[in-house]
């Protein structure tokens, strides 16, 4: 399963301490995201990717103590349901 997201310019992002508020311009909806959801959206800026690829992209920037493609897929499904990403 590959996932894709709108380019970063489609989102207005405000950091709220641990959370990130994202206004999604195409749908006019606002979302509150906890890690690792904002990081996953950032990782998709490079282009559509499946869970292992997203894991690889995140691992370039972060230490991932619980690296698990299934957890990535679960987080991505949440972003799909929210309308911030879609299955490509």
């Amino acid at each position: 399963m590959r996932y894709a997201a709108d380019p970063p310019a489609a989102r207005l992002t405000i950091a709220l301490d641990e959370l990130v508020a994202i206004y999604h311009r195409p749908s006019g909806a606002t979302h509150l995201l906890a890690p690792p959801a904002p990081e996953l959206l950032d990782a998709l800026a490079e282009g559509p990717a499946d869970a292992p690829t997203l894991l690889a992209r995140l691992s370039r920037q972060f230490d991932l103590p619980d690296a698990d493609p299934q957890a990535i897929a679960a987080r991505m499904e949440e972003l799909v349901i929210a309308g911030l990403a879609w299955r490509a």
Partner: protein
Amino acid sequence: MAEDCDKPENSAENGGNDRLASTGRRGVLMLGAVAASSVVTIRPALASTAASVLNCKIPIPDPPHGGKYITTDGKLVAPNTQGAFAPAPRPVTGDEARKMINGQSPAGFDPNARQAYVNYIRRLQHGTSGFTCYASLQMPGR
């Protein structure tokens, strides 16, 4: 993340990808349990917003592919392809799309083409006419 607060538009342009690279240190990122949740959607409370979502339109097919037929699995093929369905006679509204997805066949559309139209809508990609309308329908609670 703190930079985003001060310069949200800049961070949108940069994709936020530079911020960690520029700090030169690696953060620890927990992915969380499979069953955990990390996204909350705030739905606009304005009734007019809900109305606009239900009245937005999805052309089937999108204008650059006008006249093409739609297969049962939602792909576009040449006009008059056997087994495929003719284009929708008019754009499907958000409300009608939701009914089709729920198995109903709104007036004015060939009931036999319903599944083809639904699959076409589900395959809509960003940049295709009607995608934003469909994406809005996906918002929780719609």
